[in-house]
């Protein structure tokens, strides 16, 4: 599903922050991405999400060499990827329901075909009574859950999550992890970038550790 070969990344003329990354993410796999702050976890997630292009090496996503993709093809590919960012990126003028339903709306689906699903998921993540609330009045934890719901609603083939449990209590953290596992069972490959050892210890999953720009694997 994802194949990196000798990938390197630098910003402008600065030093290379990711070096010689070579790995594969099989379909339906589950892995944690961890490492000290500034190690390049978010940059790696952005490479996986095609919002950054590598300065060298080969990135192959869903069987396609990303260096050969045009903007429209990148947009099509992104519909297969869900992403949860640390700053949530919710649209302030839309209700929680509308934010979560956005991927379906962009795909041009009829609202009747997904409304029930969006409502069910919002209730699952504990936002059943906040569906008509606007993001500015949501707490940090609520925003995070809305962002996660938006990332998983369209059942992406690959889910990328940057510190998805950073703002929630341990109980809700476990609940969100269960959501990721359910999604994983249905075939979605999942990469969770986190510092949270408690979260990682709950699951026997592959750990990808970024250190000084290089990636180490602990199966």
């Amino acid at each position, binding site marked *: 599903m994802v194949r990196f070969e000798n990938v390197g990344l630098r910003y402008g003329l600065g030093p290379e922050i990711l070096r010689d990354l070579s790995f594969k993410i099989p379909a339906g796999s589950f892995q944690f991405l961890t490492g000290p702050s500034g190690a390049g976890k978010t940059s790696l997630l952005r490479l996986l999400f095609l919002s950054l292009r590598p300065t060298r090496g080969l990135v192959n996503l869903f069987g396609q060499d990303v260096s050969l993709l045009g903007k429209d093809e990148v947009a099509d590919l992104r519909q297969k990827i869900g992403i949860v960012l640390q700053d949530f990126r919710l649209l302030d003028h839309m209700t929680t329901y509308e934010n979560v339903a956005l991927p379906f709306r962009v795909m041009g689906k009829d609202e009747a075909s997904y409304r029930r699903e969006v409502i069910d998921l919002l209730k699952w993540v504990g936002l059943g009574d906040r569906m008509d609330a606007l993001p500015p009045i949501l707490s940090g934890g609520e925003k995070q859950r809305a962002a996660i719901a938006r990332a998983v609603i369209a059942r992406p083939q690959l889910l990328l999550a940057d510190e998805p449990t950073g703002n929630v209590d341990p109980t809700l953290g476990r609940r969100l992890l269960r959501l990721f596992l359910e999604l994983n069972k*249905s075939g979605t490959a999942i990469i969770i970038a986190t510092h949270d050892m408690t979260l990682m210890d709950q699951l026997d999953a592959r750990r990808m550790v970024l250190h000084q720009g290089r990636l180490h694997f602990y199966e």
Partner: protein
Amino acid sequence: MDLGHDRPQVRAQARNVSPIVPRGQVAGRALVAVVAIMTFLASLTTGAVLLVSASASEWQSDVASEITIQIRPVAGRDLDRDSAAATEAVRAQPGIIETRMYTKQESASLLEPWLGSGLSLDELPVPRVVVARMQPGTTLDLAQLRARVVQAAPTASVDDHRAWIERMRAMTGATVLAGIGILALVVIATIISVSFATRGAMAANRPIVEVLHFVGAGDRYIANRFLRHFLRLGLQGGLIGGGIAMLAFGFSESIAGWFAGTAVGDQFVALLGTFSLRPSGYLVLAAQAVAIAAITAWASRRTLFKTLSDID
């Protein structure tokens, strides 16, 4: 996705009601005002060009259907007899439907504004004038007519007003060209204003564009969401500007009616006809307003795609 026993069963009211791009965030009023002003100026220019062209073609058709023959007095020749002979020669020419010889008194009244009344033409070498009217659409053999007239009256000269018509045609052409030039400037100014407004709107909505990219929206999808706003703003501006210009032309027509019969009114009528746009003129103005709205949408679309390629 199997959510197990936690699957909620409560009815919810949530629906998609918000537009993807919030209406209030596209700075609308200033753009509507700019497009309205541009459409108004463009409509005034087009209307003025149409008025001048219509009046000029009326003058041309009037003048082109007339021929003037002048018979100059010279010593040893009878001016009255020469004038009558020239008139007869013109009348005999095929295609001439009417001839009229100006009498001494009529010639004197033509010169009255410059030389005053009580003029005795016998003391002045004033030529006699014969005006002939042609059948509309006929091509006259001017050389043959000229030869025939000169044979009948050797001091006669024939003028078909061609030089005057050419000057008139050149003036009308210059007016139309100036109008097109002004229209081009208005269109360019509109495109520049719309491009700036679009860029501003995109900058203000950059976070929305980024999120739309995250959820897999292509540039075309995003551009279309913005384009609707700009097309609506362009149509509003075009409608306001074009509407006011049409009212202005209608009003000026009324003013011309109020001054009819006065010296000022007559001067205007002589210069610009009845100062009224034909129905086809109003149609042209309406089409122009729609075209400016379309230009607004096009300029916006162009800038949208250009800006979107910079945002990711």
